């Protein structure tokens, strides 16, 4: 709808602005909640930005994995290099989530801060950041939905087809994510056993994403069998969430969970 925003005469991608705003909102939320889990502010800031870097790398690698066969063909035809592919690659959320969590745990271990406490502090911020980011997707016209009579035109978008009404699935997902954020905020108001808040997020977002994928229409998504890659990943993450809720930590396990 509005891919570019003018700020003091400079054209800036609205998508980029919304990602930055979403991240800032998530950071503020995490800083305000840090005392619930006894986390230092500087450790939180360090881990969050390292997790953000991991999220961007993971999102890029996931995107590259989805289009790897096309890359191989292009490399063979035109000499397109892997580095060029890496620099040009877009972002896929699930890759970002996995990369972010891995880097977060690694950073927490390296700077010797409790990893689960750090994760529980940051996790409710993730659906908030994602909700704002999806508004950026709506502005850019990417991640659009199926054609429908009550949809919107994305005629200014370089991604979506023009002249056809498309379901604004980005805004629907944004609303669902905000609901998940408020639910996690309420659930996370007190310290919870390790894995519980993660389970809430995995199951909650897994269900949201699995259902909304049926209404997505953007072409560049791998389809394997009856489901898209993101739907298969959603199912796996729901299963992982169930594991964390019911089976983690194991009863009688005495070792400190850091």
């Amino acid at each position: 709808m509005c891919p570019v925003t003018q700020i003091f005469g400079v054209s800036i991608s609205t998508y980029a602005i919304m990602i930055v705003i979403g991240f800032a909102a998530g950071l503020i939320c995490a800083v305000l909640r840090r005392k619930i889990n006894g986390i230092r502010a500087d450790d939180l800031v360090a881990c969050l930005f390292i997790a953000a870097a991991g999220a961007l790398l993971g999102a890029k690698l996931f995107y590259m994995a989805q289009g790897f066969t096309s890359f191989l063909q292009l490399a063979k035809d035109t000499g397109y290099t892997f580095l060029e592919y890496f620099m040009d690659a877009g972002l896929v959320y699930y890759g970002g989530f996995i990369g972010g969590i891995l880097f977060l745990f690694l950073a927490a271990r390296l700077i010797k801060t409790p990893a689960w406490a750090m994760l529980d502090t940051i996790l409710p911020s993730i659906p908030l950041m994602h909700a704002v980011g999806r508004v950026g997707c709506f502005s850019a016209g990417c991640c659009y939905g199926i054609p429908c009579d009550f949809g919107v035109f994305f005629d200014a978008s370089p991604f979506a087809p023009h002249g056809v009404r498309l379901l604004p699935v980005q805004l629907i997902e944004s609303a669902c994510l905000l609901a998940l954020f408020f639910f996690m905020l309420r659930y996370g108001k007190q310290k919870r056993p390790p894995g519980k808040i993660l389970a809430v997020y995995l199951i909650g977002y897994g269900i949201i994403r699995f259902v909304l994928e049926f209404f997505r229409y953007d072409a560049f998504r791998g389809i394997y069998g009856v489901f898209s890659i993101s739907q298969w990943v959603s199912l796996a993450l729901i299963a992982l969430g169930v594991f964390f809720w019911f089976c983690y930590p194991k009863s009688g396990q005495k070792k400190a969970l850091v």
Partner: protein
Amino acid sequence: MENKSTFAVVSLVLGIVAIIFAFVFWPVGLVCGIIGLVLGSKAKKQAPSGMATAGWILSLIGLILSVILIIVAVACAGALLAAGMTAASMLG
């Protein structure tokens, strides 16, 4: 104590490198920022000093700049690619 002040010095150097490379070649800025931030955090805890804090702050700035430039690059590359595809389909 020797290792702890080394962390502070290395963090400071990596922070400066991260800021410079954020604009030149962001993957290097990103890696230097991450390592500098980890070392700066360790230095601040084990042997707090002005240098440790400076290294932490500069590494954080370098990491933030790299992250922002990645996001802007992805947004611009995606728009250019999609615009090119749209133009190609119109001409084709």
